[in-house]
């Protein structure tokens, strides 16, 4: 999805002269057309992530909409204070494009795997946190982001994944999407793992088990209306995310159901990364398997729920 999102920044920049691209020493040859055609709105900065956040804040104060692109972990861990103070406190429309969301960079080890980005960014006032599930949804949300007027973080998943959302269904930031209406069991998923959740739901359907699916592309702000309606109806909720449990999607669901005093509370099972640094390499799929975040793991969890 990294290439899709970079290409889309280029498309948006051609249409909207407020758009500025800022990268931090990205891979060779990145964005050559953009650089050639709009050199004064293209900045390939050095390996200076803290600086580029402040730099983007300065540009945004002057009416530009900067897209800041680099690897999730560097963008969120290293620049946390810059994000809080320069972007969120002054509420400036800077769009952070975090590449390699979750375990994408598995072979590169724990320094490159974004396991807690969702949690830490969701804690900041004024921040918007988005984790799209496919290339099409990424593009649609990026287009919407131009009019959002506030800081946004995009957790961008792996490259080469199929589009599972529909061209015709509109998306809006903050509004979760019902992909399958539930009867008794609802899966709530976010980001790339919505693909696995959907596959699991389809597989289960074939053996006569119906589960619903709510896709949360925006973790913050989150329009809770749909979740509350579904939570009153279902007996169990299974959450699925490529993020540690603390502060992620599962937390979000529990917070809302608790704060809204939903009774009786459906059974809730959180599927997330464990509270540890990933201790293997291989590739993303290998680690997802290791931490039980695959299609098969979802199917097994649903079957377990059915035995309750």
């Amino acid at each position, binding site marked *: 999805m990294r290439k899709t999102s970079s290409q889309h920044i280029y498309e948006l920049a051609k249409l909207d002269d407020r758009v500025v691209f800022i990268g931090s020493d990205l891979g060779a040859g990145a964005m050559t057309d953009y650089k050639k055609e709009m050199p*004064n709105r293209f900045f390939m900065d050095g390996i*200076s992530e*803290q600086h*580029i956040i402040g730099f983007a804040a300065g*540009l945004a104060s002057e009416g530009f909409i900067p897209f800041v692109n680099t690897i999730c972990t560097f963008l969120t861990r290293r620049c946390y204070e810059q994000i809080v103070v320069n972007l969120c406190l002054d*509420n400036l429309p800077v769009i952070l494009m975090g590449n390699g969301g979750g375990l994408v960079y598995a072979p590169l080890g724990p320094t490159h795997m974004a396991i807690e980005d969702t949690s830490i960014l969701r804690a900041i006032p004024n921040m918007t946190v988005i984790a799209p599930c496919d290339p099409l949804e990424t593009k649609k949300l990026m287009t919407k982001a131009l009019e959002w007027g506030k800081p946004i973080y995009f957790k961008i998943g792996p490259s080469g994944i199929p589009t599972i959302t529909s061209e015709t269904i509109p998306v809006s930031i903050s509004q979760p999407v019902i992909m399958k209406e539930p009867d008794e069991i609802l899966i709530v998923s976010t980001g790339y793992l919505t693909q696995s959740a959907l596959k699991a739901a389809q597989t289960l359907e074939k053996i006569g088990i119906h589960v619903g699916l709510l896709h949360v592309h925006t973790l913050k702000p989150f329009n809770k209306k749909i979740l509350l309606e579904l939570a009153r109806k279902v007996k169990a909720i299974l959450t699925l995310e490529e993020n540690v449990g603390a502060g992620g999607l599962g937390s979000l669901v529990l917070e809302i159901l608790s704060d809204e005093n939903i009774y009786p509370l459906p059974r809730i099972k959180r599927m997330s990364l464990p509270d540890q640094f990933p201790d293997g390499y291989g590739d993303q799929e290998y680690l997802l398997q290791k931490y039980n975040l695959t299609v098969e793991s979802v199917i097994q969890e649903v079957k377990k729920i059915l035995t309750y």
Partner: protein
Amino acid sequence: MDMRSRTLRKLVIAGLESGGKGHVGSSMSLIEILRALYDDFLTYDPQNPSWPERDRLILSKGHGCLALFALLVDKGFINRSALDTVCQKEAMLGGHPEKFKIPGIEASTGALGHGLSIGVGMAQAAKIKEKNYRVVVITGDGELNEGSIWEAAMHAAKHRLSNLSVFVDYNKIQCFGPTYEVLDLEPLADKWKSFGFEVIEVDGHDVEALRDVMGNIPVNINKPTVVICHTVKGKGISFAENTAEWHHRHHFEKEDIARMYASLDE
């Protein structure tokens, strides 16, 4: 010290008094730099603080904000009465400047090492839009310990941001003690020079000298400028001068305030 410098310092003391605490030394060392900037260098309209053609000033050492508030009062951006409620419940003015609360503040600062990057962004924006406004960033000296300052400096030099100038309030004392003991900045001028800046050094309390320096900015149309202002921490308050103990005070007795006023009139 002339009457105007004393008057501005009295506004700082008024803020310290109502706040009951505050950065004394860090504000007093800044007065003449800010005074010269607002009197002779910056273009602005207090009635229209977001006038697009205005020059932008960022106080990156946000803890010196009482000095900036004094100038904002002096120039009519904010009312004098705002200094009577500093740090009080629901007040407009607190211990650091906040952009959306206070007219004339261009960026919220307080965490050090951020203002220069923001200023670089604003200066770059002027270049893209072919606007003539200038950007001034005031940093502390201890603040130059932050690596992000030097990241921003490299960007400014690479993009030849001659519309950007940095004023370093080099009072040579940070929280814990002398800068040369905590983390020596010297050779400071050489550092900036090697980072691609035009460097000017000046007595940061000599208003005439500051005015002359500002008249020459940009020194080089292909480079950003840094003005290293040699200042005295706590300037004007004799017992607070050159001492880390008066960098910040958590509490003032009535006598402390009286002593500060008295010291100015010595």
